[in-house]
């Protein structure tokens, strides 16, 4: 693959998270030494069960942790060779990392267009209007909704949140569960868009997803986190083949697809624990 070659020639990754520890509220230790590397131009995905610390990792990178009384107490985060774990969130955005936060977090008392314009807040060029049209092309539903964004349906808000990230044209996007609440058709479309802008605009992605199938298919590399630690990582091909991943994230290891109806009384133990 072309990107793999690039990576080989350019050893310093765009983003590297080195062994960070994160503490909330001065007392609650959530990440216990997490290291992640995201090479330039690639899509890297981060999988893991609820409460593993995925969102926390993203917030640590984007600097938003500080507004939640969280703190990186050990380790460091480097972006383009520069240390960013001490920087303000807004400066990090300016240096090119944009996060799509979990739970949509659109600005409810503004219209869709105003939300999109805000996505482009750090941009100074004149193509904002053009990009708004682009987002409306991706998500035609948004164009019809002229009222306040707070009245949009859950899925529509999710579209808006993704659209807002596209407006920013950053170097790197951190996506926290972009497919959440989207209809199956749209999930496919969103992953299509992610791959497209990664390819066309060369935007690097760090993707947190529960939909492991799609995520691993789209990504070049994957990490799996559990209870604040990375427990497994590898190229997406490798992960797709891994027995445990198949069992717990993709569904159906050896057999056909398991039915949700079959209650399991026996659970296979995870080997990485």
């Amino acid at each position, binding site marked *: 693959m072309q990107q793999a070659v690039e990576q080989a020639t350019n050893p310093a990754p765009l983003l590297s998270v080195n062994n960070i520890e994160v503490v909330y509220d001065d007392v609650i230790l959530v990440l216990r030494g997490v290291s992640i590397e995201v090479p330039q131009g690639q899509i890297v995905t981060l999988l893991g*069960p609820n409460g593993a610390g995925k969102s926390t990792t993203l917030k640590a990178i984007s600097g938003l942790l500080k507004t939640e009384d969280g703190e990186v107490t050990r380790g460091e985060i480097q972006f383009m060779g520069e240390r960013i774990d001490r920087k303000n969130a807004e400066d990090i955005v300016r240096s090119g990392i944009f996060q799509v936060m979990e739970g949509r977090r659109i600005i409810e008392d503004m219209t869709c267009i105003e939300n999109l314009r805000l996505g482009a807040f750090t941009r100074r060029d004149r193509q904002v209007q053009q990009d708004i049209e682009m987002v409306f092309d991706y998500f035609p539903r948004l164009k019809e909704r002229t009222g306040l964004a707070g009245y949009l349906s859950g899925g529509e808000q999710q579209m808006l949140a993704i659209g807002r990230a596209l407006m920013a044209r950053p170097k790197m996007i951190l996506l926290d569960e972009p497919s959440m*609440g989207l209809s*199956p058709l749209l999930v496919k479309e969103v992953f299509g868009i992610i791959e497209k802008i990664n390819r066309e605009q060369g935007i690097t992605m760090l993707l947190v997803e529960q939909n492991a199938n799609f995520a691993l298919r789209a990504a070049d590399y994957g990490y799996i986190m559990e209870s604040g630690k990375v427990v497994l990582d590898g190229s997406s091909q490798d992960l797709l083949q891994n027995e445990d991943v198949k069992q717990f994230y*993709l569904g159906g290891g050896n057999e056909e697809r398991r039915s949700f109806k079959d209650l399991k009384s026996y659970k296979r133990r995870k080997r990485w624990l």
Partner: protein
Amino acid sequence: MSDVPLLKVEAVSLAFGGVKALTDISFSVNSGEVFSIIGPNGAGKTSMLNCISGRYSPNQGRILFSGQEVTHLKPNARAELGIGRTFQNLALFGHMSVLDNIMVGRHHMLNNNFFTGPLYWFSPAKREELAHRRAVEEIIDFLEISHIRKAIAGTLSYGLRKRVELARAIALKPDLILLDEPMAGMNLEEKEDMARYIMDLNAEFGMTVTMIEHDMGVVMDISDRVMVLDFGKKVVEGSPEAVMANEHVQKAYLGEEDPELEGTGEVA
């Protein structure tokens, strides 16, 4: 009793200004069923649940619960009648502990008030609180969240919050439980757990379930009947297989051109 559906929605329409969120929707949910509502984003699914639980009042139509008209009852009155629900955008009490969040679900079953409650040791309040606490602990055990019992709900991760929401809704002891995308933000393993909880609720606790979900695997596997909405209109209603076979559903909702993804666990 069995001939009266637990929930009957008759020709409900709802519009916000120009937006027609629901147009002339009728359906009924029988006691003991798992009934799913699916449809594209913005189809009006959540609005439908809001009409049932009382957040919105429909412009037209009636809603009957166990044969009683509830169309214009306030939400809290409907909760007392036995309608519980979870929310698509989490709506927990962020600063309360998980335990207290779930205890709020018991609100309508408790009798102590601002006068007897504070007399705790000298009134029946203590006994009552503890009895309900016991029931709540059972729910906690059932949903396997005992490790976060004392955690503050607002600090939990997304998936855990969804679980607590479910617990709170169960605590209401509703006859009808409305679930708005219970599986969102869960990985496969957690979805499996969640599916199991829902089936248990249905089979063992005898709750009738009405659920909105985008994960077709789950919908197919555990629902008895499925209704499809699109642009506020009802498209079809029937058994999961029948619904899935519907051409409109396939095109507008599933986007069925990608057979490659089919066999891999999630019919995404």
